[in-house]
């Protein structure tokens, strides 16, 4: 089979067919700052730096996507929130913008056009798109309306809201859906290929399935059809095997899955209704040797890549700042070595004891 470009490779895999090799999405957002010799805060302050950083990482690691994600808290900046920048980790959300449930009664959905931080992200996407055209997928991120309140009001208060104040929960969801739809579509209009819909609260790590069906799934069903492009629902390390079919029913194309679950079982449960993205352990990756990287890559490919429908990636949607270049390059090398279709070697592969 002649070599495909990253877009062809990814689309073929998402079409449940085998491309030339397993697509590899190395979701390195913070590493762009290292590449440019900037602090994380400096790096994210200018759109052209992020575009440049991501393009340099694309060349270095030969990943199959560009990642337009800045940091999750940038969305709450649009709602009036603040961001705390760390020297060595993901920027965090500052104080909650909803300090009492009653605030929800008067809350208004912010305009994407008026939010300067979001406009910066859109400009980065435009610059990346101008450079790669349709050869490399540009993955943008929108936090799910159902998961956004963790940053808007704090996780503990949000759990209490879900269980104890359903009218205000519904009002907040209505506001958040409008925001997420506008934000996702603005990124698609700027040139993003697909939206990674981060929805970790829906994970069965965080809420039981019965509650997901009443809440997170309902919200996704009201949101995803209004997003004018493909979506990948990401559980950000959380479990999802018991709800994989329920997630597929929301119309999403891809599900980001956790290393806490067996990839072969997930692949069987996906049953070609959705593709899988995952599930390398980003936390352990920090101290992997080249052999560790090869073992993990080989296992993931053996468990999930046959027949397509699989993109090799980390299991959180962001590779930690502490993961060194040589590990990322070892992952790339292992994907090159073991990811070429047809995967005849998989028939003889045995899972580690």
């Amino acid at each position, binding site marked *: 089979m002649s070599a495909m470009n990253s877009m062809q490779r990814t689309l073929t895999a998402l079409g449940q067919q085998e491309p030339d090799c397993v697509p590899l999405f190395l979701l390195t957002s913070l590493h762009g700052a290292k590449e440019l010799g900037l602090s994380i805060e400096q790096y994210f302050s200018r759109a052209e730096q992020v575009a440049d950083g991501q393009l340099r990482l694309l060349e270095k690691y030969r990943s199959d996507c560009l990642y337009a994600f800045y940091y999750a808290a940038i969305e709450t900046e649009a709602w009036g929130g603040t961001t705390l920048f760390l020297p060595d980790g993901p920027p965090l959300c500052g104080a909650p913008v909803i300090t009492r449930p009653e605030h929800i009664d008067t809350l208004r959905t912010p305009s994407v056009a008026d939010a300067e931080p979001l406009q910066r992200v859109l400009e980065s996407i435009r610059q990346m798109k101008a450079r790669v055209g349709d050869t490399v997928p540009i993955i943008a991120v929108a936090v799910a309306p159902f998961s956004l309140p963790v940053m808007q009001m704090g*996780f503990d208060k949000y759990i209490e809201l879900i269980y104890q104040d359903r009218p205000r929960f519904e009002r907040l969801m209505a506001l958040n859906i409008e925001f997420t739809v506008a934000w996702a579509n603005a990124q698609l209009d700027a040139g993003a290929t697909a939206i990674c819909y981060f929805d970790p609260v829906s994970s*069965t790590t*965080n809420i039981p399935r019965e509650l997901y069906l009443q809440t997170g799934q309902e919200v996704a069903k009201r949101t995803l059809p209004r997003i004018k492009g493909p979506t990948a629902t990401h559980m950000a*390390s959380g*479990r999802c095997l018991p709800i994989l079919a329920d997630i597929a029913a929301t119309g999403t194309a891809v599900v980001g899955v956790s*290393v806490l679950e067996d990839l072969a079982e997930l692949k069987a449960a996906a049953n070609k209704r959705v593709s899988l993205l995952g599930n390398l*352990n980003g936390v352990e990756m*920090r*101290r992997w040797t080249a052999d560790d990287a090869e073992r993990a890559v080989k296992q993931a490919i053996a468990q999930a890549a046959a027949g397509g429908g699989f993109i090799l990636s980390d299991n959180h949607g962001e590779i930690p700042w502490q993961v060194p270049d040589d590990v990322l390059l070892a992952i790339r090398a292992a994907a090159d070595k073991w990811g070429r279709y047809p995967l005849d070697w998989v028939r003889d592969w045995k899972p580690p004891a």
Partner: protein
Amino acid sequence: MKKAAHPLATPFRHALEALDRVTAEAVFANALEQLSPLQAVEQVVVPALEAVGAAWHDGNVALSQVYMSGRFCEEIVDRVLPPSDPDRKHQPRSAIVVLSDYHLLGKRIVYSVMRASGFELFDYGRMDVDELVERVLADRIRVLLISVLILPSALKVKEACRRLKTADPALKILVGGAPFLFDPQLWQEVGADATGASAADAVAIVERWMGEMQ
């Protein structure tokens, strides 16, 4: 020594998992007719919370259920064993903190479950390493529980452990949070004495240390 679970622990646990407050209250009231308040806590509440925590670790119960169960149990235990009650476990002198991180849910759950299990402990909220070292030594803490969510915070535990252990080698440090779940070697790398996969683990480990310190 760990107390055997009373038969009411099972229906109490089921009511907790279903977030059925009315049934949980009724089962606990039934327990109080048969047991002293301390026995009801040790033989009904603690085993139920342990089972909920283990079920979360196995993927059979969600964090929202663990959180709401912990808050509810904290409330009913406060009612029958107020913080000043002599049956409360004030020893070993313990504290819990979120280190260099702004994700507070994990600490809130462990704090609730510890208190619902009869322990009294200082809640330090969120601190950086310098402030934590100063406070732990000033308060003469013997057991410190550190919670984190993100990897950079987990790596800062190393400095906290080094400085605290240098000043007080007898101090016991228990760590928990996502980085320790995803990397089972990390707790040893940062120099902690143990890690817990759930709030119930924290109770069991502190109880074990309490026995060793007596």
